[in-house]
């Protein structure tokens, strides 16, 4: 050995050959050597009486192919129009979907952060913390940023825009919509108290917010953007403050809820004792939302002002649901309260979010 070395080794098919498994290794940022090792352990060698050399050659070749395709994947619609690689449509879809797929662990680290160079610089920390290779982190981060930049200024439905420009599946497009929405509004998700929440929890909340609190949500006729919260609505939320500043109204609200819940929950006493605190918490969150800075703290506020007190009193999810339902509905009976529509729009989302977030 040592007498000969492979100087050049390429394989090009008229139809581009791609192995999904190897693609995943490439996406995951493996080096060729690592990928070869993992493939060998996976037993692929037996499949075709191959040797390590053969595997290495195949892996190199495919990595190179993926690298050449990467430019096209940045603009998936090009993939269908390009002439360089002949790839059947279903394979194209697979390539795109996988390329834009992300790790939950990674997304939790950057969700709500500004997709800036600074954040990118910190990716090595993220990589160290999550065990995801830096290369993969960069790809995922760049994907977020790329999608963000494209849809940021577009009118119309966020999910549809993403789907149209990036040819993603419905599910993945929704996830990206959440990521873009969080990044745009810079919601804080990284605090220790929020660590217990998964990306899917946040993605659920994002859908609620997008569907209810943006301009596009109320008026489909307005070709507005889904990414920004409805400013007018946020202004109107100030009006809800009356629920806690007006003492009569606060008492009346409490008694209505207590009447409804009596005997229906084991934490009735705790609820009754805490009602004013909880209500103040929720209404104050609403009242502050007109400040962009406080928008960012929306989730942490929900946790601190509502979820944590309930949790320490050992409320069950059922208790929460029951409480929030009656807490919301009772307001309709308060004759002096004039902001029913805003209240419902606010509480509908808050209730869904809290229910989603109320777990261990």
């Amino acid at each position: 050995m040592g007498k000969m070395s492979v100087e050049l080794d390429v394989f090009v098919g008229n139809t581009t050959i791609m192995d999904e498994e190897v693609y995943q290794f490439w996406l995951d940022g493996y080096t060729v050597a690592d990928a070869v090792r993992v493939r060998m352990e996976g037993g692929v060698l037996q499949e075709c009486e191959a040797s390590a050399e053969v595997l290495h050659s195949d892996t190199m070749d495919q990595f190179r192919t993926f690298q050449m395709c990467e430019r096209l994947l940045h603009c998936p619609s090009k993939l269908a129009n390009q002439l360089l690689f002949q790839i059947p449509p279903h394979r194209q879809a697979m390539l795109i979907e996988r390329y834009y797929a992300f790790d939950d662990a990674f997304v939790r680290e950057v969700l709500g952060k500004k997709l800036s160079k600074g954040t990118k610089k910190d990716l090595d920390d993220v990589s160290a913390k999550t065990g995801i290779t830096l290369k993969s982190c960069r790809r995922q981060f760049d994907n977020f940023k790329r999608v963000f930049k494209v849809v940021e200024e577009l009118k119309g439905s966020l999910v549809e825009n993403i789907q149209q420009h990036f040819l993603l599946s419905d599910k993945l497009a929704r996830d990206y919509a959440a990521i873009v929405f969080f990044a745009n509004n810079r919601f804080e998700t990284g605090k220790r108290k929020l660590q217990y929440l998964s990306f899917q929890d946040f993605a659920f909340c994002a859908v609620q917010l997008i569907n209810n609190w943006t301009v596009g949500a109320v008026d489909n006729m307005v070709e507005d953007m889904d990414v920004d919260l409805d400013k007018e609505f946020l202004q109107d939320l100030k009006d809800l403050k009356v629920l806690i500043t007006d003492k009569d109204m606060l008492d009346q609200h409490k008694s209505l809820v207590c009447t409804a819940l009596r005997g229906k929950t084991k934490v009735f006493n705790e609820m009754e004792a805490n009602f004013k605190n909880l209500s103040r918490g929720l209404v104050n969150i609403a009242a502050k939302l007109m400040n962009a800075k406080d928008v960012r703290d929306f989730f942490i506020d929900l946790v601190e002002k509502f979820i944590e007190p309930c949790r320490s009193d050992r409320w069950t999810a059922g208790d929460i649901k029951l409480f929030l339902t009656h807490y919301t509905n009772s307001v309709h009976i308060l004759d002096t309260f004039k902001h029913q529509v805003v209240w419902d729009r606010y509480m509908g989302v808050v209730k869904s979010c809290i229910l989603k977030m109320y777990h261990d």
Partner: protein
Amino acid sequence: MPGKLKAKIVAGRHLPVMDRASDLTDAFVEVKFGNTTFKTDVYPKSLNPQWNSEWFKFEVDDEDLQDEPLQITVLDHDTYSANDAIGKVYIDIDPLLSSEAATVISGWFPIYDTIHGIRGEINVLVKVDLFNDLNRFRQSSCGVKFFCTTSIPRCYRAAMVHGFVEELVVNEDPEYQWIDRIRTPRASNEARQRLISLMSGELQRKIGLKVLEMGGNAVVGYLQCFDLEGESGLVVRAIGTACTLEKLSNSSAAAPPACNSPSKDIKEPPFSEDPNPNTHSSGPSTPLKTQTYSFSPSKSYSRQSSSSDTDLSLTPKTGMGSGGSAGKEGGPLKTLLRQQTQSALEQRGASSSRIFVRTREFPFFTLTSFPPGFLIHVGGVVSARSVKLLDRIHNPALGNTRSYKLLDWNSFAADEPETRDAWWEEIRQEIKSHARALGCHAVVGYSESTSICEEVCILSASGTAAVLHPKFMQEGCLDGYSDPSRLSRQPATFSAGSEKGEFDIFPQSKDSSAALGLEEPSPPSCGFCHIPYDELNIPFPAHLTYCYHCRRQKVPDVLFTTIDMPAEAAVTGKGCLIQARLCRLKKKAQGEVNATAISNLLPFMEYELHTQLMNKLKLRGMNALFGLRIQISVGENMLVGLASATAVYLTALPTPGGIQIAGKTPSDITYEQHISNMQKKINDTIAKNKELYEVNPPEVIEEVIGSPIPEPRQRSRLFRSHSESSDEVSELDLSHGKKDAFVLEIDDTDAVEDIHSLLTDTPAPAGFYSCNTEIMPGIYNWTSGLQMFTSVRVFRLSNANLTNQGLNKIFNDLCENLLKSLYFKLRSMIPCCLCHLNFTVAVPEDELIQVAVTAVAMTFDKDQAQENWKLGADKTHMKAIVENEEQLQFPLELCTESPSTNPFSPCRGTGLQESANAHATPRAASVDYSSFADRWSSWIELIRLKAQTIRRGSIKTTSSLEKASPLPEGRSRSLRSTRSYAGSTVAVVKMTPLSFIPGTRIIKYLGIINMFFIRETTSLREEGGVSGFLHAFIAEVFAMVRAHVAALGGNAVVSYSMKECVFMENPNKNQAQCLINVSGDAVIFMRESELEATPAPPQTSCSGGEVTT
């Protein structure tokens, strides 16, 4: 002014950003044809410009239409400095010139830059209006169809096969012109691309003219190559087989009648009105057999007519008397012919006589598969090599003559003594004499190649000696030796014999000369195996037996050929790819010393390659090779030889003996033991192989393995001549007993190594088969999976003091590993077969070995029984033949139009599985007769050797007769209507090196694709190193081929090949350059299932004659 070319630039997309400031581009387009240039407006600030230009019109001669490509250049407008070129597209408009091809070229073309590769795409529309031109001094040959396919293209029938056409043109290589020192690499590359494009165009046009003069309308098996001779120039040469093709009219899928008429002036009279009464009596009365069998060193008469040659012939001119006499006649005659040829242009009247002689000069056919009845006997492989010294540009003697203007090919002196033409002619003469020695009058499966290193050039030619049925050919086409008149006078009737498809063709009386060995009708499944030569005068030590199939005629024990296996041949089991690999070190040297050294090495290499092939064949338990291709490449310090072939067990031939190992002088016991161990291993391997390839001869004749017969010389005792009466058939079986084993003597370590390497050839993994012919003998039921690929590897030998053995092992491993990689890559297609595996080796630099492979992987259905297929096939075949005969009064149709259309080997199974009309298969062939060949054993090798000569010559000459045609990039015209793939999605274009696509029918040939690209980089590392660079380039080449085919309205390229892949690197300078030449036939195919559904495919409607008239 017979033509108007119209081009419209529609739009661009995915353009590169040319203005960094705005991230946009201000693009416009220059459209150039000949010396006329048009420009579009600038479309500002866009990467997806919509020019939607007017129609740019060029009024041009059809000669120019053939030679020149349409050149489209995309530029970025820059107000303050020179406009930057984004890239170019060359469009070959040749396909628009033939009435039966495409009518319009329209589609997205990659914009290509030799430095940056593909940079966006441009949408272009091109049309041609041709006017009738009755000019009798025409220089153009518009309308002659070209096919790379080496069989009669499906959807045509051959009314006549006219024979061999060849041409070459020469020029200086722009890369070596003085101006290259001051121009940019881009300008240099573009000059080269354009020059080669023009030269190929001219070449094609000239060949077209020859075809017209011969009375044909098409060239089949067109093989064009270029030789980069460095400072001494650039040669573009081509060979092909001239035919008169007729479109099959009644095929439902084929074009309506309107399409059939070639329309236009060029249409040739059918064979019946053959212009030259062919008085072959006047032909060169070659001495018959005496000379033939003498096997004199052919060199002796290799037309060294120009005595002034500075030729040093390395082989002794030990011509025997008879050979010499042939020489005397051959030489002067040929010179004469050449002159005639040259003047033929002006004197049209002279043409007919010229054709006659000319064609009979070389009865060569580039076809590798044939219509039934065409091939009667096969004699064996014939080949010749010759070592030449290329002239250096500073050679004072030639200094002047070389400085002609670019593209002025006609200025060369016609009587220039040393020309490339003469070199090839010499070789062809030699091939011809070999064929004669085998009792054959023609050479089929013929090809030519070169290997160049510095100023040394090895010219090689090879083919298969054969006896053909003269009825298919214009008289005079075959070598006069065989006296075609005799044969042709006989009624060409054949009686359809038994249902099994045994046809007896044109019964012939036995020729007393026995030259053809035809007497009794032979069954098609074995007839071609019967020896064409006289067994009393066997040109080499052969071992003859009676045919195991019909028992009537003699067959050799082993048969080597360069052709595809005839579809009707009876085989046992499946075939497999066999390769012989060899490296030989040589000292670095210059000039004649170097050439001499190479010449001296060649015989040994050929001998060893042959031995390896033979051993490997025996090891597989098989007895015949098809598609044999031997390549010997020269480098500065080594020669590399690679022989590839597809081995099969022909039922008609005897079971091969085993391989026996003989120790030299049995000295001690351990040695004996060692020997017997090895023997056992070999026997085991043979047994395993037989199982693997299902080689179970029907009648088990004897245990081969167990009884190797030790004395090799025994052969001589076989068969003295008998009068061949059929009574003797019974005797025949006796011969089985004497099958002798092939004996390997282990007398030194070399031999031990050889045996080891023999045994290290690993068989393909389960589920894989491989062959280098179109399809694998023994597999019939192809399914639709198809993957064409190209793989290239370059190995660096880092250790300076390698031995031959070490080198051999490295080279052997290299090829084996490459194959293993291919199997691994394609494992998802199992069960599948790698077909048409075409290996090319080169020694690009001192310590580099390059291997390039192009092939197609095709899936097949394991379970389908082949029997069904065969049955059905035979029946249809018979039917087809009978019908055709009635309708056409022509003996056989070259191409049946039955649904599966191909009479030839390829797609046999397809009909079966794809559709109900399974029986329609190709199998047509049953009629052939032929005899075959021998093994070219050491004998022929010897002969070949002699062919080596060193000669030095100047390059520039060409055998030009006429003018050229262009053929740069795609070609087209055709039915837009079929293109369902409008809009943004890209049409799928299949590519395959085969002449067909399983399960489909080719309904239209759109024209030949012959493209040449150069790619260069000065940022090698940034582009992913050499692998990244080449990977991208090959992908780009594929993309450009597909785009051109799609623009012609096609959906596939068949008979695709990468004829050249010249890669050079200079990693220290971060540079690399690569040249690639690819070719193929653009076609429209339809699935058989679709065909049934749609009786009249849309295509047909448009193509008619409208274009041409």
